[in-house]
């Protein structure tokens, strides 16, 4: 049966901003789905608030709405577009939840929209814990034994029913599961239950069997309309139960299951997808296995594509999201083709002849005060995946792909020391899961611990431990050798164990270039193998490669001009989807222009690692060795390093020194922008000014420099992205408290000290240049005053408060800089304007985080143009010589992961902490701001109570804020100094007790849902604890929070615009019709 022809238009809901647990894998899946449905001739209507996605590029859907992902806005879009169907399973949990709300509120029925892929009943059954449990028991599958109780007596009975301690206690409806825990003895059990009953608003706790230490597996399953089911991939977690699968190291295929166990799990997976009733598409089913008895327990299922399905797609070459979209419109698996083999159908199960390892990446350092142990709540912000012929090779490649300083499993570098830390530290780090645990396994070996001892502490399957021990043993053997004494067999074996040349240099007492040359001289060459879905049973046509050290190289020859694009590696705060977007655009543009593109990346979540984005895909670590090998074997004509964020930039000089042709702006120019002296000379020449600044190589000089300039100063390391280790300091005491941290971020690199401009307006400018012509791409004015990292700041495009002469001054300065730095490609400049004087803060001759936003705002694919320019085209030839200014307002807002890091300080600062961004578009600035807020969540309230408490410097402005809020009908609550100044100025406000000074406090009111807006601006660098408690409570209770006074003014403007206005929705295809060249 072919596709359905009773449908003509289909609505796809995206996943919104990048947050922990929902990253760019949903751009990958959504983009695939849009392409798949468009090529079938359906009219695709897409909604996503995230402008940094490829899917929201105007050509991927017929109509694209960058609007808030709320029921209210979705209903407006449905009313306007009248889609026939809604595909709810491709935009993560966000899209699934919204689709359910649209169904529950009768909106789908009202507009006669059919949910395809999964029906509401199936989603309900898959998502509701109790319904799911009953469904599993009904079909003869086992689940963790549990019982809900309302008293201590019932709890004791439940414990008896479930069996032995330890037991897990989960209070119902507490935020983030607080008040729960694991009880190892009776006394602990009674205490946790009593506390949980008390904390639960419904006085109810769940007593559950504890599966800690059991093995954990995932099955990626697909089903079609004819009830044909296939398993795409099995995944085994290296970390046993207790660590969220998103935070676990995972391996595909499953390594320690016998065929009997695997088939039982496969049969169970099909039974689950059938019973839950997911009609078509993919599901992810998680199992736990008792390593002592083989008891198999179903943990949960996701009736949609997921992070794991993206991983499974990249791990096998089977495009789950694309196939899911086709199945949803009526195709069956046997009617679809396997793109990679071309001749065989999609109704098969991929088999792989390699091992895939995924390792999550964490950024605890950005959330001081938070707990860095790994639990059942996900905390990682990104992941790297690596493919090797063996687990050992794949694990070492994954460890070096992570870019956290580790070179692999040992062999020098971070975590690779030759002597272990003390035993107590090792034991502690092994016993409690944490980001570095895998490296502590090696320290355990190094300290002479046995595999049994380590198993007892970690419960990591002995097979994995043994594999790592083999790497360790080889490392120790290599240390006894030198480059002269190692024989070729051992050398080759070391490469097959995944040792990089850098590790070998450390172990053999040599250096990178010498090891590399010696290796090649001995004929130990990297071979590239294909990811072909079928373990070589059929010929593969898609050049998707990974490196290994085998007998044969499968790189297909070609004669076209080739350009390599280096991706950004694992997502981290400061380097994420925006850079992948640029890399994807570079590939699209250069392919269109007739080049062959070679993509190198290690991030499985991305569109760049989709096998049909580039002509050739190398799923490889972004290290000097790995990149050089590909460059040389592919005989590339040039490499683009300026699109993938800091990762490829850090490689640029090393690559160039080894003969690599870096196209676009030269690495020297990129470095000149970072080099204080060179840069000062350039500014002097151009007649531009920057805040007074100094460089220091040690703490003592740094302090002297700060005094010389005068406080407040901005203190920051060089060569970092995302404001890592960046501080604004107002006094010597504060300075001394943080200076060490700034030096620690980039050891041996200087620390920069700048005069901090208070209350200055900041401006981000993106520019494109071909070496002769420079054109401004976009100017974005920050909402907050200078001092907030540009990745976290709210922004408005075009600038909303600056005068035309000032903007002209900015324009001239930007053009001059582009010329002077000989920029070929993109450049981002940050300016500050204080008292109508223009200061230059920073220049980065590379793609910036704002490129996708700017491209969406003005409807011009800047990154594509830049890639063409780098390959030699002029802007004149490309027809882009005049700056374009949107006729509408575009507001960028950021989303933050504070709720995942209890205890962390909630404030905006020069250190970037946001994970994602949203865009608000409207003809009215206030509405655009309100939309951005609604998209970033929670949206602005239009009435109710506001809690207002600001630092001393903001107090004069607080009066105006409060007046306007009162005028809008809000009731103002305040404390201390703010309350006093409001009273003095005749603004009616209710005074609340400060925390610990009486009740009720703002926190009490937040808990009772009595506050709708919090305006709380932190004073001092290290905010007071009670203030943070209020902000944390606002986050926890989903209350709109403003932490800067300028943000608060924007909020008020937004609320004023919302009151009495019917907010509309407009597709970006309509907005970009109205842009005009300047």
């Amino acid at each position, binding site marked *: 049966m072919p596709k359905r022809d009773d449908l003509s238009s289909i609505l796809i809901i995206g996943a919104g901003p990048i947050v922990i647990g929902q990253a760019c894998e949903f751009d990958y899946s959504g983009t695939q789905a849009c392409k798949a449905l468009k090529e079938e001739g359906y009219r695709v209507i897409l909604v996503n608030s995230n402008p940094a996605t490829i899917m929201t590029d105007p050509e991927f859907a017929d109509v694209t709405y960058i609007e808030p992902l709320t029921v209210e806005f979705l209903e407006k879009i449905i009313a306007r577009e009248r889609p026939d169907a809604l595909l709810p399973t491709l935009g993560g949990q966000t899209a699934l939840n919204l689709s359910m709300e649209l169904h529950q509120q009768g909106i789908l029925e009202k507009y006669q929209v059919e949910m395809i892929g999964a029906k509401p009943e199936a989603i309900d059954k898959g998502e509701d814990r109790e319904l799911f449990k009953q469904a599993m028991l009904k*079909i*003869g*599958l*086992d689940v963790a034994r549990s019982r809900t109780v309302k008293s201590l007596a019932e709890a004791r009975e439940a414990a008896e029913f479930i069996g032995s301690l330890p037991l897990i206690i989960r209070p119902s409806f507490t935020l983030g599961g607080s008040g729960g825990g694991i009880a190892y003895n009776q006394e602990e059990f009674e205490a946790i239950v009593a506390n949980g009953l008390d904390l639960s608003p419904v006085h109810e706790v769940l007593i559950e069997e504890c599966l800690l230490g059991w093995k954990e597996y995932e099955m990626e399953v697909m089903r079609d309309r*004819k009830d*044909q089911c*296939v398993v795409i991939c*099995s995944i085994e977690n290296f970390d046993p139960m207790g660590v969220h699968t998103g935070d676990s190291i995972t391996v595909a*295929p499953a*390594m*320690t*299951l*016998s*065929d*009997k*166990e*695997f*088939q*039982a799990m*496969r*049969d169970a997976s099909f039974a689950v997808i059938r019973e839950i009733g997911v009609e078509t598409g993919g599901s992810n089913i998680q199992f736990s296995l008792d*390593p*002592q*008895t*083989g*008891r*198999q*327990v179903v943990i949960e299922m996701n009736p949609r594509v997921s992070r794991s399905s993206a991983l499974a797609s990249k791990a096998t070459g089977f495009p789950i999201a694309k196939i899911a979209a086709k199945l949803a419109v009526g195709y*069956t*698996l*046997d009617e679809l083709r396997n793109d990679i083999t071309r*001749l*065989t*159908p999609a*109704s*098969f*199960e*991929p*088999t*792989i*002849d*390699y*091992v895939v390892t995924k390792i999550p990446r964490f950024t605890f350092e950005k959330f001081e005060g938070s707990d860095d142990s790994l639990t059942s709540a996900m905390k990682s912000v990104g992941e790297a995946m690596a493919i090797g*012929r*063996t*687990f050992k090779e794949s694990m070492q490649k994954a460890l070096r792909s992570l870019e956290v300083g580790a070179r692999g499993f040992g062999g020098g570098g971070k975590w690779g020391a030759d002597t272990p830390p003390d035993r107590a530290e090792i034991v502690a780090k092994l016993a409690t899961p944490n980001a570095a645990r895998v490296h502590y396994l090696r320290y355990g070996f190094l300290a002479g611990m046995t595999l049994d001892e380590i198993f007892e502490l970690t419960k990591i*399957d*002995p*097979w994995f431990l*043994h594999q790592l021990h*083999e790497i360790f043993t080889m490392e120790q053997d290599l240390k006894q050798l030198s480059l002269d004494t190692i024989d070729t067999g051992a050398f080759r074996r070391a490469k097959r164990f995944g040792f990089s040349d850098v590790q070998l240099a450390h172990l053999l007492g040599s250096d990178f270039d010498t090891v590399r040359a010696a290796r090649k001289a001995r004929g130990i060459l990297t071979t590239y*193998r294909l990811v072909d879905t*079928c*373990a*070589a*049973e059929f*010929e593969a046509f898609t050049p998707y490669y990974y490196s290994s050290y*085998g*007998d*044969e190289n499968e790189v297909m020859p070609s004669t076209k001009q080739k350009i390599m694009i280096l991706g950004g590696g694992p997502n981290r705060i400061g380097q994420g989807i925006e850079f992948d977007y640029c890399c994807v655009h570079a590939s699209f543009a250069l392919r269109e222009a007739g080049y062959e593109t070679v993509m190198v990346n290690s991030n499985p979540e991305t569109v760049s690692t989709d096998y049909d984005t580039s002509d050739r895909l190398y799923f490889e670590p972004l290290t000097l060795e790995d990149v050089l090998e590909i460059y040389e074997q592919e005989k590339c004509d040039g490499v683009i390093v300026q699109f993938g964020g800091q990762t490829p930039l850090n490689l640029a000089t090393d690559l160039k020194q080894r003969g690599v042709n870096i196209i676009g702006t030269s690495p020297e120019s990129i470095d000149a922008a970072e080099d204080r002296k060179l840069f000062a000379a350039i500014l002097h020449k151009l007649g531009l000014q920057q805040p007074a600044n100094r460089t220091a190589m040690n703490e003592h000089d740094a302090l002297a420099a700060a005094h010389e300039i005068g406080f407040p100063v901005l203190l920051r390391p060089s060569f970092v992205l995302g404001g890592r280790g960046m501080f604004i300091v107002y006094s010597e005491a504060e300075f001394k408290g943080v200076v060490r941290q700034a030096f620690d971020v980039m050891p041996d690199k200087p620390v920069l000290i700048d005069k901090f401009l208070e209350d200055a307006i900041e401006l981000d400018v993106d520019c494109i240049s071909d070496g002769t012509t420079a054109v401004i791409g976009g100017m974005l004015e920050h909402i907050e005053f200078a001092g907030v990292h540009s990745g976290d700041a709210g922004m408005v495009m075009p600038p909303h408060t600056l005068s035309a002469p000032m903007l002209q001054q900015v324009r001239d300065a930007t053009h001059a800089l582009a010329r002077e730095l000989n920029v070929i490609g993109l450049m981002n400049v940050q300016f500050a304007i204080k008292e109508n004087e223009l200061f230059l803060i920073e220049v980065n001759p590379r793609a910036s985080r704002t490129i996708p936003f700017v491209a969406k705002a003005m409807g011009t694919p800047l990154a594509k143009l830049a890639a063409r320019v780098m390959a030699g085209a002029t802007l004149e030839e490309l027809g882009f010589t005049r700056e374009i200014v949107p006729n509408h307002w575009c507001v960028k807002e950021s989303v933050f992961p504070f709720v995942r890091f209890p205890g962390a300080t909630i404030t905006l600062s020069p250190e970037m902490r946001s994970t994602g961004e949203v865009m608000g578009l409207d003809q009215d600035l206030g509405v655009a701001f309100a939309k951005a807020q609604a998209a970033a969540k929670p949206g602005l309230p239009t009435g109710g109570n506001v809690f207002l408490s600001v630092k001393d410097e903001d107090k004069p402005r607080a009066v105006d804020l409060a007046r306007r809020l009162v005028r809008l009908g809000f009731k103002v609550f305040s404390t201390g100094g703010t309350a006093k100044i409001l009273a003095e100025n005749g603004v009616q406000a209710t005074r609340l007790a400060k925390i610990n000074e009486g009740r009720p406090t703002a926190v009490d009111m937040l808990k009772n849902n009595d506050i709708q807006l919090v305006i709380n601006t932190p004073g001092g660098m290290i905010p007071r604890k009670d203030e943070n408690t209020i902000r944390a409570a606002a986050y926890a209770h989903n209350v709109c929070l403003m932490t800067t006074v300028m943000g608060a003014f924007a909020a008020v403007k937004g609320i004023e615009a919302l009151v009495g206005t019917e907010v509309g929705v407009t597709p970006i295809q309509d907005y970009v019709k109205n842009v005009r060249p300047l």
Partner: protein
Amino acid sequence: MPTHKPAVLALEDGSVFHGLAFGADATVAGECVFNTSMTGYQEILTDPSYFGQIVTMTASQIGNYGITAADDEAAAPMCSGFVVRELSPIASNWRSQQTLPAYLEKHGIPGISDIDTRTLTKKLRVDGAMKCCLSTLPLTDEAAIERARSWEDIAGSDYVKDVTCQTPYLWGADDPARFNAPYQPVGTTLGILAERPQRFRVAAFDLGAKYTIFRKLIRHGFDVQVFPANASAAMIREYAPDGLFLSNGPGDPAALDYMHRTVMDLIPELPTFGICLGHQMLTHALGGSTFKLKFGHRGGNQPVKNLDTGKVSITAQNHGFATDPQSIEAGGGIVTEINLNDQTVEGLRHRELPVFSVQYHPEAAPGPNDADPLFQDFYNLIAQRLAGKV
């Protein structure tokens, strides 16, 4: 633990792979084939259909979960040699009783590890299955190549005589351990079948049968009397079975004309079900012919489409020969299932007689259980026959 003892694998085309030895010290020759299953090496090693063959696994980590007696498909490994990319030095699984290398050593089977199995597989895919020699003893490359070339080709060989049972016996009667039910995780009841009210007697030709076929027949309500390949039609009739079963097995199906005749003789009287070589026996019994595939189908991910229902099952396969679809028409054969990868015949039935067979392995072991209902189909067919409906 893996040794550092060298081993060699030589192909008839002159290519030689040097790796590390495991298992027994021996030099063997056979047909080199690859299997793409990611799990189930033990079931593959003990599947008598691999008799005369040297098997390489495309999956790169082998031996991880060890060896468990309950997972055996025969009393001992039946292939001639085993080839892997990397051998696990330990076995990590709660059911495991010994390691893979220890098991192979005990049974005299040599193995080679640390060779590029993907390169080997690609060679077999491009040039077809080849004669090869595997040696874990000191042997020159030239000698190994010569040994490979001089091995007698599988085509035209009757291997069944080497693997069939010697005398008839009732399956499970003297050895309840082998009578065991298929693996079932504790706590899970999915897949457990209710006891059937009526059990049927089936006469099963053991042409090199996998244990799990008989285990599944038992589970689906049959009592299984096992017969050697050379049993006459009269011996079968004497047992008075309700149905006839034809098992899998090794070698060239065309070389077994004694079997073809027996089957031809019996199918007009008995509802018949054949698997793999049994399917090929039915092909020949219907006057059809079989031909050798370039490199065969061996793995657990093969898509098979049922031409009646249009549904696709993912199946376990292990065969080097296939039925010529035109050849069975004259004898009343109808193609019922095809492989979607290469459109070859995967199933047939007789136009009038209650007789059917499949080329793939519905008993799985190793591989997917999707085709398990075929055993039930066989049961239903007999029930209908006894009720006078067919």
